[in-house]
């Protein structure tokens, strides 16, 4: 490690404006210490109302059973599992930004990692609802845990991808939470130490765990962050791989393909970044954080979107090619008769337009750096990714091998839709609370990069000191007399 600083001048600054350390704290903590705006109250109220509607829909489903949903004879998975996969996918961006980009030393992650990680956690919380309530007799949900029981003991089937999912999602949630919270501790201590009211001092005192900022603690903190990033990187890839196994290990035409794991992971990153964009574009404007989440940040994420969108597009085309080349009647029917055409053909073409065609516009730099366009595109991409899951699930299920087992046209009931709306309510309720009570930008990390990547510092950058800390370390070994 060296103190000698050099930063490419070609690279855009990560922090705009003339800032010092104190100003960074002020800018980010400001919204926590002031009353929320009217806009916040309106948004929060709407989210809570959506959440309550979702709670009512779930109440109906638990009381009267799965029959409240329009799942049919062959469409046993409908909106619920579509939503599950959609939310899990969205929940991939946070860990990707904080873990993989940390390992790749991408400096721009510092501006957006905290909010993206929070988003991840909320998205995984939403995702988890769907398989749990889909069980029907939800009071027996604990049966998925392997524990010695009085029913034999009847163990869970460890060879089943559905059980892998239980482990993958719960591990992912736990590790993301730990990663997010361990990073939050120093920033919560910052809020604690400048708190003016007694209540705030007490509450932030409790949640900041008595953090002091000792160098030894920082050293361990960095080591923890790095190893958690190293663990999360394969983890984030494994989670959506395992979700794709739910489909790929079955023998349903349209699901039984080996391309699913990479294709799902790329799609997850694609939709996750889109959701991060949706939130960041609004957050930076409402909370006045344009200096920290710069156009450069937005552009970097748009580049990821165009890349992953293209990968997803390649996967769609590969699927079609293999369906033809494989010469399996059922497989080719699933794609060419029930997806490209047929009663659900509209959803396939909607997916194609939103996911493959529209992100290509991001090849233009002007559009990548356009805030309004980015916002619209981020919503379009998430609509497209929702339909991708809908297409995969419903078009493969609604016509079974035998025409006698074909379903009627599947359309969701109001309670199925209500459950989905409720999960959006849960997500945004959590995000509104987070943006009010937690620092949405990692304060300590911004301070860390401020002097190398801050706009006003980049101008006057040069070599600082001749002596390296390593050199001094060796010189001083054994020199202490205590």
């Amino acid at each position, binding site marked *: 490690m060296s103190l000698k600083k050099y930063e490419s001048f070609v690279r855009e600054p990560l922090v705009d404006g003339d800032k010092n350390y104190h100003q960074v704290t002020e800018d980010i903590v400001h919204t926590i210490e002031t009353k929320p705006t009217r806009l916040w109250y309106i948004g929060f109220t709407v989210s809570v109302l959506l959440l309550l509607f979702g709670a009512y829909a779930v109440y109906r489903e638990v009381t009267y059973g799965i029959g409240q949903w329009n799942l049919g004879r062959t469409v046993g998975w409908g909106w619920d599992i579509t939503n599950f996969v959609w939310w899990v996918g969205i929940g991939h961006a946070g860990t990707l930004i904080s873990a993989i980009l940390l390992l790749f030393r991408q400096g721009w992650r510092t501006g957006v990692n905290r909010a993206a990680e929070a988003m991840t956690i909320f998205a995984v919380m939403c995702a988890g609802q769907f398989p749990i309530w889909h069980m029907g007799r939800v009071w027996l949900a604990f049966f998925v845990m392997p524990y010695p029981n009085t029913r034999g003991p009847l163990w869970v089937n460890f060879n089943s991808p559905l059980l892998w999912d239980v482990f993958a999602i719960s591990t992912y949630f*736990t590790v993301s939470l730990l990663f997010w919270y361990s990073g939050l501790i120093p920033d919560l201590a910052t809020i604690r130490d400048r708190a003016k009211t007694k209540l705030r001092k007490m509450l932030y005192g409790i949640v900041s765990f*008595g953090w002091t900022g000792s160098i030894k603690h920082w050293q361990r903190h960095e080591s923890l962050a790095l190893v958690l990033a190293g663990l999360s990187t394969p983890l984030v890839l494994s989670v959506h791989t395992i979700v794709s196994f739910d489909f790929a290990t079955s023998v349903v035409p349209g699901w039984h393909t080996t391309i699913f794991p990479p294709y799902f992971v790329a799609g997850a990153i694609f939709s996750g970044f889109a959701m991060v964009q949706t939130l960041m574009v609004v957050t930076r404007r409402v909370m006045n954080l344009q200096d920290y989440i710069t156009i450069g940040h937005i552009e970097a994420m748009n580049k990821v979107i165009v890349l992953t969108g293209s990968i997803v597009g390649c996967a769609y085309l590969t699927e079609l090619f293999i369906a033809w080349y494989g010469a399996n009647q059922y497989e080719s029917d699933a794609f060419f008769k029930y997806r490209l055409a047929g009663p659900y053909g509209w959803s396939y073409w909607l997916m194609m337009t939103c996911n493959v065609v529209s992100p290509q516009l991001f090849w233009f730099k002007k559009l990548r750096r356009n805030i309004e366009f980015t916002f619209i595109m981020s919503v379009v991409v998430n609509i497209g990714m929702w339909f991708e899951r809908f297409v995969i699930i419903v078009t493969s299920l609604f016509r079974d091998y035998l025409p006698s087992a074909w379903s009627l046209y599947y359309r969701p009931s109001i309670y199925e839709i209500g459950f989905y709306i409720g999960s959006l309510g849960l997500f945004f309720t959590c995000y509104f609370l987070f943006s009010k009570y937690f620092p949405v930008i990692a304060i300590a990390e911004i301070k860390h990069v401020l002097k190398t990547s801050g706009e006003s510092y980049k101008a006057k950058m040069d070599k600082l000191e001749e002596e390296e800390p390593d050199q001094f*370390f060796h010189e001083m070994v054994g020199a202490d007399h205590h």
Partner: protein
Amino acid sequence: MDIRKFVVGCYDDEEVLFPAVKKVRRAGYKIHDVYTPFAVHGLDKALGYRETRLHTAGFIYALMGLTTALSGISWILAKDWPLNIGGKPHFALPAWIPIMFELTVLFSAVGMTLTFCYLCNLAPFVKKHHFHPRATDDLFVMVIECTTKTNVQEAQNFLASTGAKEINVQMAEVGWWLGTYDKDRKIFEVGKEAAVSA
């Protein structure tokens, strides 16, 4: 309870702090700790700290997770209650890889985080002495421990010469105790000579 006397020097720039740390150590003072608002790379080296071995602990937890998954699943599916699933082998190792991987990661992450909290004495309701409230904002706070031989006045002057912006002397508990940050009550009586920080 372990109350000691400290000379505290506050710097407003890590580029001043680095040479100061070196000067103070060369002069033979014992640095109790340095508190910074963010991780200043290289400062641990300059203070003579060895590398943390937290990641080794993480590796050991990971092995524990792997072992738990493999032994648990194989005992359940091959010994305790073998089920015939499509005529496949009871010991179906490839099908267990996902869960083995997940538990490896889970054990490692949880274990490391708990170890981190244990080593740094971090927990809800834990309270510690803070030498300066702005150490988590924009000040770099160097704390020198006074021994019986330390000339306090000389140490203060020396810190001033290294560029410290704010210097004071504090009596402080070095450990932690249970409490919340809204209450000022400390577990020890503050001596006469202790300066109230900030």
